[in-house]
């Protein structure tokens, strides 16, 4: 029995009750073995479920550990793949992924493509808020991508809206902030 205690057993973890049963089984006669076997089996089946649960738990923890180890590396995959993109091996390289991380200003002037005059949009605080920082500063043309004339018009429209009291000067419009909070709570990324 000394050997038995130290050898590997799938039942080892379930505690001392079963080992007591095992000892009893060892001493039983062969005549009562059939009944004892079924009793033994029923004990085993009862004890099996916490065991498998524990094993599943262990597997889950190991999985989570692997995921957590991979997560810092996943951050380096910066490209948002779209269906229909073509990729060659160099598109998976770190050099390309570094390029996809950089955020550029929009390449075209939106107001030109929409045929709108920003100055007439001064009452539209949701358009104005897109060209303001969260602290209310007018964004630079490096960020907005507007052509010089439209950038001047946009800046003037924001100043006009602030001056008229339509929009706060040190943060975005409260309605925009509320929409942001709601969007975040719903798990979206509109803002």
């Amino acid at each position: 029995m000394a050997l038995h205690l130290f050898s590997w057993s799938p039942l080892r973890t379930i505690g001392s009750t079963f080992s007591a049963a095992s000892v009893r089984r060892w001493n039983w006669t062969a005549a009562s073995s059939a009944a004892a076997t079924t009793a033994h089996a029923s004990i085993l089946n009862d004890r099996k479920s916490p065991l498998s649960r524990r094993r599943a738990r262990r597997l889950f923890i190991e999985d989570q550990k692997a995921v957590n180890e991979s997560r810092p590396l996943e951050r380096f995959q910066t490209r948002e793949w779209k269906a229909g993109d073509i990729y060659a091996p160099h598109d998976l390289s770190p050099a390309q992924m570094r390029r996809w991380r950089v955020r550029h200003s929009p390449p075209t002037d939106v107001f030109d493509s929409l045929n709108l005059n920003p100055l007439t949009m001064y009452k539209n605080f949701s358009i104005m808020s897109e060209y303001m920082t969260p602290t209310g500063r007018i964004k630079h043309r490096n960020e907005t991508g507007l052509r010089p004339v439209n950038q001047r018009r946009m800046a003037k429209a924001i100043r006009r809206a602030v001056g008229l009291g339509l929009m706060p000067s040190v943060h975005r419009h409260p309605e925009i902030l509320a929409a942001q909070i709601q969007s975040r709570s719903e798990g979206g990324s509109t803002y």
Partner: protein
Amino acid sequence: MVRVSLSPTANLLRNSRLFALPQALTPPQEQPTSRTVTESDSATLPHPIRAAIVTPASSLLKGDWGLKRPLPAKTTSARSSRPVVRLNALDTFEHTTDFESAADHTVTLEKFQELHLPMSLPEKVSYSSSQAPRHSSPFETRLDNTETSAGLDDPAAKKFRHSGPYLASQTEAEFQAYLKTVRRNKPKIMEKLREYFIAKRTTERRKQAQDSGNFEEIDTPFEFVEEEFQAYVKSLRADSISLGAVIFQILDLPPPPAIPSDMIAHMVRQTYFHPPAPKLSSDEYVASGPPKTHPSAGLSYTRSHALLYNHPRFGPQTYQRPVEARVLRPKGRFKNKGGKAVGGVAGIVVEDINAMAFNEHEGPAGIDQFDAAIPGGAKYWVNPVRASVNSHGRIDLASYRATVNTRAPYGITEYQKPKPKHVSRVISQSGQRQVPRLDRARPLPGTFSASEDLGSPADNPETLARDLMKSLT
């Protein structure tokens, strides 16, 4: 007329392949936005915009590509056994030829053609049904028409191109520019409208004659009365339903996407001009605009998918040999909005449409969560079933995950993660040297076994010792 004989220089230019190089297409445009964008100017474009050039081996040795100056061997023949280049600029201020390798697109084309897929007309792949839409070839005579094809005389004929622009995808500025060209061409358009008017009146007169049975005036030519025409134009202006049909026909505009409800058309009756029934070859073209290229984009010229893949041992197979897809973005990515995995088949990015469950434990390794431990990156086996080119010139590929049945004839198995070697705490503490075999059959519970070891009795030292003791006593 006497044909002017060409000068030697003109003859040289006429026979020159360099001058036959086509103009570069415009690179694919993104929608105008007010947000910052992420892009890489050196990434592979979704479709090629410049011609790829090869040179015969004899010229390649000399670096001669038929351009203004030879190209260096270091970046062409020394780097690749089959160098293919594309030309950004024939000559620059620095007296260099600006070129780069075109292998990204040429090799993708080769890989695509190895899939043995015919090109289909685009169709919406619905996530709710597991069936891919039926294959319809763009090379059918009835569908393979442009606005100038002779085959359009057939009333059932469809076309994939109109001469007018797709108004629904235009920005306001583009639309204003188009309106300018229309206004400039007003005399021509009015001439077309006159022809339309004459044709309409002629058919009306014939129909009237058929109804009344009076065929006396049918042979007299139709005299055009300007006042009558002006009255017709006036009536068109008042009636948006009949004006819509006339506008779309005379300007040859592609039909706009269908409005979701008749109620909307009723509400905007003054500005909604009913288009005629669409004659585009695919419904997707009505929804997102006619294609920029031929619907096959020259990727494949086979018409049908009715090929039978014959396996040397197991005979004909429903599916051909599965291909390996790379997992480009696993499903459970931190910022993955779609919740779908994105894979790459033959260098083409494909959304994994087969995954229905968000958490997939039975799926291939690395598709659920990013796993850096898989050597070479996560991959899985797929059967591509349908390929088409959408109206933006991108390839839409649909693929099924390879099942056990499709993989079995080729002896392909999915990558299995190595099982972690788990050593029981009892063993690690006991100091026992021998680690018991875990993959043997377990003894039945309740059977006589003093030690609960999994090893077979034959090579278990403990059992051997006990047997020995028994036989001695």
